[in-house]
């Protein structure tokens, strides 16, 4: 059995988070992961306060285990989401796409454990100082919004810089990845892509099929020109986006406009021409549909076997 300090801190059985993926991480997926012993996370994404509240209430009906909410800081409704998580007594909040400092005081005073996603050492140090319970060091292998640094390089640097627990994310798809993350100094992991094909994940069948079929080279990052690169599966849409980025006849505004609504179109409608099918580089390792319970127990059995065998090279 694998237990780390993050299990005690959050009251979970396995040190694993399910990433707060927009238009994917709903009450169905989050409650299934929490029921499997991990930490399920609902994505607040661009939901307004009442939409988020409804999803949280739904999740509470589906699980009595702890679960979290990911607050996307670039959302126009971030202030509302920040208030709703307090009113609904959500036990864990993760944050993405920015610096959560301005909400830290009210969240920590409400007893919420705040665990920001950090793409750099400086931001990790800053959020530790303002009261973060842990940090998620997410490398650029992940799907969705990505930074430059890889998980392999980022996790040990963040682990050395802070004294709070570090959760590794990006590029982890099985037990080997978990074992490796622990070796780099993490005491927990966050997975997104592997959960896309979970039975309890409500995304379109087309999306799941794309992930299951994907090979190692089948993701691409677009949006660098706009300053917020995004990793997704290669589709007619992402290839077109990629081309347009290098076409100076296409304005930044037009480029930005192409992306509007594309996450919903992928996750909910399976629209290959206009949807953005976010996925990480480990998509090539995801080859079967399973329940969240099967995923969580399988990868921790693997991790345990790998970690137990790690001594074989030490003579």
């Amino acid at each position, binding site marked *: 059995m694998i237990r780390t300090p993050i299990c005690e801190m959050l009251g979970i059985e396995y040190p694993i988070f399910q990433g707060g993926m927009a238009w994917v991480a709903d009450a169905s997926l989050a409650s299934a992961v929490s029921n499997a012993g991990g930490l399920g996370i609902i994505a607040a994404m661009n939901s307004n306060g009442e939409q988020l509240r409804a999803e949280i209430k739904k999740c509470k009906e589906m699980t009595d285990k702890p679960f979290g909410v990911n607050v996307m800081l670039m959302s126009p409704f971030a202030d509302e989401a920040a208030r709703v998580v307090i009113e609904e007594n959500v036990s864990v909040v993760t944050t993405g796409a*920015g*610096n959560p*400092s*301005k909400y830290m005081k009210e969240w920590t005073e409400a007893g919420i454990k705040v665990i920001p996603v950090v*793409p*750099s050492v*400086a*931001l990790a*140090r*800053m959020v530790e*100082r303002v009261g973060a319970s842990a940090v998620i060091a997410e490398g650029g292998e992940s799907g969705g919004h990505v*930074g430059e640094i890889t998980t392999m390089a980022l996790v040990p640097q963040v682990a050395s810089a802070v004294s709070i627990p570090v959760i590794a994310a990006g590029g982890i798809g099985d037990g080997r990845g978990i074992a490796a993350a622990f070796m780099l100094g993490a005491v927990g992991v966050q997975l997104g892509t592997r959960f896309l094909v979970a039975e309890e994940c409500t995304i379109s069948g087309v999306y799941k099929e794309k992930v299951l079929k994907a090979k190692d080279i089948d993701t691409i990052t677009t949006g660098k020109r706009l*300053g917020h690169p995004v990793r997704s599966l290669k589709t007619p849409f992402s290839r077109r986006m990629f081309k347009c980025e290098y076409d100076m006849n296409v304005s930044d505004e037009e480029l930005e406009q192409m992306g509007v609504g594309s996450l919903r179109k992928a996750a909910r409608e399976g629209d290959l021409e206009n949807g953005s099918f976010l996925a990480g580089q480990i998509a090539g390792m995801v080859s079967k549909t399973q329940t969240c319970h099967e995923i969580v127990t399988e990868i921790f059995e693997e991790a345990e076997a790998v970690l137990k065998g790690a001594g074989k090279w030490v003579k």
Partner: protein
Amino acid sequence: MVLEKVIDMLADYSDVESDKITEDSTFEELGLDSLDTVELIMGIEDEFGVTIEMSDEFKTVGSVVKYIEDNMEQ
């Protein structure tokens, strides 16, 4: 005094020559993104012994300098 020191730090960090940086320069003009800004703020804190609340939106060199000066007086 604070301004000169901040400009020195910025020049060192961004490789923009210090005589090209003024109070009105924005971080964006210096080619710095939000992560660079966090990096610099942490460096400035160490240098001046002040704690900077990132809830303030820092856009220009002058806005950071003013914040440091206000908080050093306390």
